[in-house]
């Protein structure tokens, strides 16, 4: 206790040194957490709350998030399968959600190198056009196949999904942040 307070009072000259890189270590997330979070948001997406069109697609959000941060585990194939499952649940034409999810997953994987070290806000700004473009492609295909225009509400959905990105960043990196805190306390 004493030694600790002595150190933190800045007696040691070492205290004035600043770390070169203050950003937390990037360590891979726990695979159970990755798959568990995907399973959780998928099950939540089965609830009837998406009847209102501008509802954000949280499954797509979490999927894109893991495509960006854990591309080795979560990738295009996961996106495709989850999309198909959503198509069956929503009784859409098979492949409509799958296409949307695929395009977003691809966007996240392509942007990964650039976005990895940016803040969540900048990531959200970069992901917004990805969500919008993917939703537009899927929306236009749906319009063509159904022969009816669906209105503009899906655009809101894409927008709100992108806005929620920082929140996803906070929640999905929570286990790692706690680990980092534990490290700090251990010193």
């Amino acid at each position, binding site marked *: 206790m004493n030694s600790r307070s002595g150190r933190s009072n800045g007696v040691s000259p070492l205290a004035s040194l600043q770390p070169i890189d203050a950003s937390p270590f990037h360590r891979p997330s726990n695979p159970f957490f990755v798959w568990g979070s995907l399973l959780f948001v998928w099950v939540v997406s089965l609830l009837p709350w998406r009847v209102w069109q501008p509802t954000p697609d949280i499954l797509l959000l979490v999927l894109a998030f893991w495509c960006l941060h854990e591309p080795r585990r979560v990738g295009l194939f996961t996106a495709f399968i989850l999309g198909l499952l959503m198509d069956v649940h929503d009784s*859409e034409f098979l492949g409509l959600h799958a296409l949307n999810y695929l395009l977003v997953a691809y966007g996240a994987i392509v942007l990964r190198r650039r976005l990895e070290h940016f803040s969540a806000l900048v990531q959200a700004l970069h992901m917004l056009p990805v969500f919008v473009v993917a939703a537009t492609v899927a929306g236009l295909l749906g319009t063509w196949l159904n022969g009816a225009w669906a209105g503009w509400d899906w655009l809101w959905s894409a927008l709100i999904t992108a806005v929620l990105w920082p929140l996803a960043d906070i929640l999905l990196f929570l286990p790692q942040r706690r680990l980092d805190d534990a490290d700090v306390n251990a010193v």
Partner: protein
Amino acid sequence: MQEHGTLRLFKRGPSVDVRLFLLLVISLALLVVDARSTLLAPVREALAVAIYPFQRVALAPRDAMDYIDRWTNAAALARDEQDALRRQHIEMAQLSTHAAQLAAENEQLRRLLNISEEISQHSIAVEVFYAPPNIFSHRLVFNKGERAGIQPGMPVIDEGGVVGQVIRVTPYSSEAALLIDDQVSIPVQVLRNGLRLIAFGSNEVGKLEVRYLTASADVREGDTLVTSGIGGLFPAGLPVGRVEKVDRDPGTGFAMAVAQPLSHPERYRHFLVLKVDVGDTAQPASEAPHE
């Protein structure tokens, strides 16, 4: 930190772009095939069966809340229901004697005409499982399926009349297209004069359209449309809708009527599926590929 993919000594499967291309092609192929034919029905059914337990789990809290709510309100509900039933009972007593008379008379006439077909319908009570959040169509998914004897093509009714038609079944659930779904068409007739027509789902939300009328057709506002029984899927005489307005276009010589459905799929959770003989050849109207 070891950057994923920077040090790639060995090739690990196809690149992201190739995978994207392949999966995109697969999705597009699925989309087009699913929109134009019923070839993918088994795939959809298999996936639906696979996700069924998860749907049940997801909706379990809602069902539990429902149960608790009903349980706590049971006394009040029972009282209300009893009052309503008593009223109904008095009203029905008169009707039933009348119906018994008619049935006897009908029986006699049928014997005279040598018609021996069975007219009573068996039915299955179903409950809404969930309503798919799909903007393009108006559907309901029920909690019973093939196991309970439901088959595609069977009509769904509530106390107001026809609600829709079952279009897909899995062993444990079934999906019905509502009357207002623009892929559904149903043979109807005007109750007042027996004029036979076809009603379609409308672009206007929650309405039915009767198209292909000649401008001189005798359809008026307030006319009740009932099923005509033509086509064999819907039994005759079920109420379908009430005509709200008739647009006559003297230019083309055709008219179009807009009707309000008499059933209320949005109000209730329980419906009846009529076990009609759908046969093997009868395809539900809504499954017909549209242009």
